[in-house]
């Protein structure tokens, strides 16, 4: 194994190639595109063989090709982001409903409107009930390492797995990375042995209609398989550690949680900045720690309760939210902590690529420790901009599109504010 300076997306492509996918379907969408570009080149040079690289006409087709490939006994892979993930939604549910172990990288990106290409978690969060396992990477190295683990998990349980990595922040970052060695991956990940396959010598009907007499049971089995994953995810991470010497994956990671009275839970690349902020507060004598959640689906209720149960104050920092409710991850965390006497805060941050700075995090955490933080906070929200638009809306029936009005207020669009 060798450490090389490389782009996150390229490193993921090389790692996926080491997993020997037999069918890769590609449709471009920023910020995922470099991954399938990398794989396309590896197939074209013959480095990854045998593998069929299919340039499809949409993400809906990408997932559909993966469904057909997986049902025909091939290890199938694709990658997407944002609108692409939404466009394949119907096929996502179909893949999980049929128990097809497809692995897909999601380069997390915001969902429009307003159209925005930058990072947050609204895309993957929107598919939290699709029946896919969702693993969130903190670093590029973890994003890479999660792929062999994802194929293992998917194929053992017959459940599709999404590996979620922050768009741009990870996908486009160049850093020193270690692509897992081919022989080691081969030893870790056995060839795909499908549980069901389209075979002329043993004809099967796959995808039959199921009515009320058995639908609940079929769906319950999907639930059951994800519950099994709660056991297998940490075990597979342990095997990975034994084989590769790196602590990647698992249900969650804790950081400086011993004796912590305040614990912040988050997912993805923001954990790095968060740990820096926590280090600073620890230096100041605050008893504060971090929980990095890797497995969002299945949601590890017991592990979360164990990690957060002793804290007096729990802050969930999330890069998406449910309009009309608030936090999404928080809602799950609250279920895990039901009945405990704790203070809860949901902090929505980093939407559409807004930088989550160490300074903002430190101020927010100090507010929390000082009892000044509201239960639901939008970090670094420019309230003045919001109020100006609300004023316009009150003043004129035809106040125009909010997004463009706010860009005018910011001076990004020429012509001055609307009216």
């Amino acid at each position: 194994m060798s450490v090389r300076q490389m782009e996150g997306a390229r490193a993921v492509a090389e790692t996926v190639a080491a997993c020997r996918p037999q069918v890769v379907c590609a449709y471009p969408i920023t910020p995922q595109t470099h991954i399938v570009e990398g794989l396309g080149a590896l197939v074209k040079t013959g480095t990854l063989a045998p593998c069929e690289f299919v340039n499809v006409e949409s993400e809906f087709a990408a997932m559909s090709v993966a469904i057909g490939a997986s049902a025909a006994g091939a290890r199938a892979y694709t990658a997407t982001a944002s609108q692409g993930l939404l466009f394949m939604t119907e096929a996502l549910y179909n893949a999980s409903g049929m128990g097809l172990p497809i692995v897909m990288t999601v380069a997390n990106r915001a969902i429009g409107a307003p159209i925005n290409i930058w990072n947050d978690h609204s895309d993957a969060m929107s598919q939290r009930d699709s029946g896919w396992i969702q693993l969130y990477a903190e670093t590029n190295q973890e994003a890479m390492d999660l792929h062999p683990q994802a194929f293992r998990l998917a194929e053992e349980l017959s459940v599709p797995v999404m590996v979620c990595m922050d768009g741009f922040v990870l996908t486009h970052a160049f850093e020193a990375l270690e692509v897992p060695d081919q022989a080691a991956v081969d030893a870790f990940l056995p060839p795909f042995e499908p549980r069901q396959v389209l075979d002329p010598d043993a004809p099967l009907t796959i995808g039959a209609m199921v009515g009320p007499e058995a639908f609940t049971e079929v769906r319950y089995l999907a639930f059951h398989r994800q519950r099994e994953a709660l056991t297998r995810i940490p075990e597979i991470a342990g095997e990975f550690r034994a084989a590769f010497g790196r602590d990647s994956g698992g249900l969650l990671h804790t950081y400086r949680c011993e004796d912590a009275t305040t614990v912040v839970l988050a997912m993805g690349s923001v954990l790095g900045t968060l740990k820096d902020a926590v280090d600073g507060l620890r230096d100041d004598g605050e008893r504060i720690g971090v929980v990095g959640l890797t497995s969002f689906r299945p949601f590890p209720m017991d592990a979360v309760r164990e990690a957060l149960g002793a804290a007096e104050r729990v802050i969930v920092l999330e890069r998406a939210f449910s309009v009309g409710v608030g936090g999404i991850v928080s809602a799950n965390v609250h279920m895990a902590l039901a009945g405990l006497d704790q203070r809860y805060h949901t902090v929505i941050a980093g939407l559409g690529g807004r930088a989550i700075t160490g300074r903002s995090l430190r101020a927010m955490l100090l507010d929390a420790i000082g009892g000044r933080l509201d239960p639901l906070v939008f970090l670094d929200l420019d309230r003045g901009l919001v109020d100006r638009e609300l004023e316009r809306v009150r003043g004129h029936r035809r106040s125009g599109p909010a997004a463009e009005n706010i860009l005018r207020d910011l001076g990004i669009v020429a012509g001055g504010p609307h009216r």
Partner: protein
Amino acid sequence: MSTREIRYLQVGTHAVGNRLLDPSQRTVQADPERANALTCGHRACQGCGEALGARYVVDAALRATGGRLVAVNATGCLEVFSTPYPESSWQLPWLHSLFGNAPAVATGVAAALRARGLDDVRVLAQGGDGGTVDIGFGCLSGMFERNDDVLYVCYDNQGYMNTGVQRSGATPPAARTATTEAVGPHPGNPFGQGKDVPRIAMAHGIPYVATATVADLRDLEAKVERAMAIRGARYLHVLVPCPLGWGTPSNLTIRIARMATQSGLFPVFEARDGEVTGVTPIRQRVPVEDYLRPQRRFAHLFSHPSGAEALDRIRASAEANIRRYGLLDEEDRP
């Protein structure tokens, strides 16, 4: 298949009995060893053109591939009536995913078979007209332009019959459906809409495109056989009357399909690499009225004041087909 001239017509049907042919030229369905891939027990309506067409198509494809065949099915009547859980009528490996993705799923199956070195196993995808010309059209066009090794068969019954007879992009002008009711000054489906997917398929330059009907099942089998001898994307568009949706007696399915061709409204042809290479000429031309009148979906044409004008436009479209494909010899033209 080779051809030879046989001077014998069965009265009415214009079909040649199998007994007059060499055993090698007899139909797949005449073979006691046929696959019977869509076996009995399914829930299709009496007189269902799609069930008949699908059985002939799949059996012919199975014979052509020596049984090395996988089928992918779009959501629709064919899928629903053939696989009521926990039963299945399919005697071959069969996969149903979604309504709009059958061509892409078939691409995936073909890619997997290639990657696994199973080049002898072939892929057939099938769907109704809704799944093909409307919701699955993007995936169909993608599969065509990539020239993926899939035979896609559209069983065209000219509407969304599974959901209760709504209009599709293949519903003919003036036809009554649940979403183009026979009411108002212009009853039925508007003129000037809809798409001609066989010609669109040809525009992709794919190696094989053909149309067929359940009125000429030997022709249907022969086209499947020819299609399976070719690698790459192939498209077969089969007209399959629907007694429920068309309002026709279930014993008239074949006759209605034949009148669709003999009126000129449904041209039967074959194309290679984007060029028409053969047409099935009209043998006994019938007026479009003869085709339309037995169908309740067109009843308003014969009672509504706008009917005469609508019939003129339908006649004109039959004429256009006859001219475009050369369906009549000059002396037969009116």
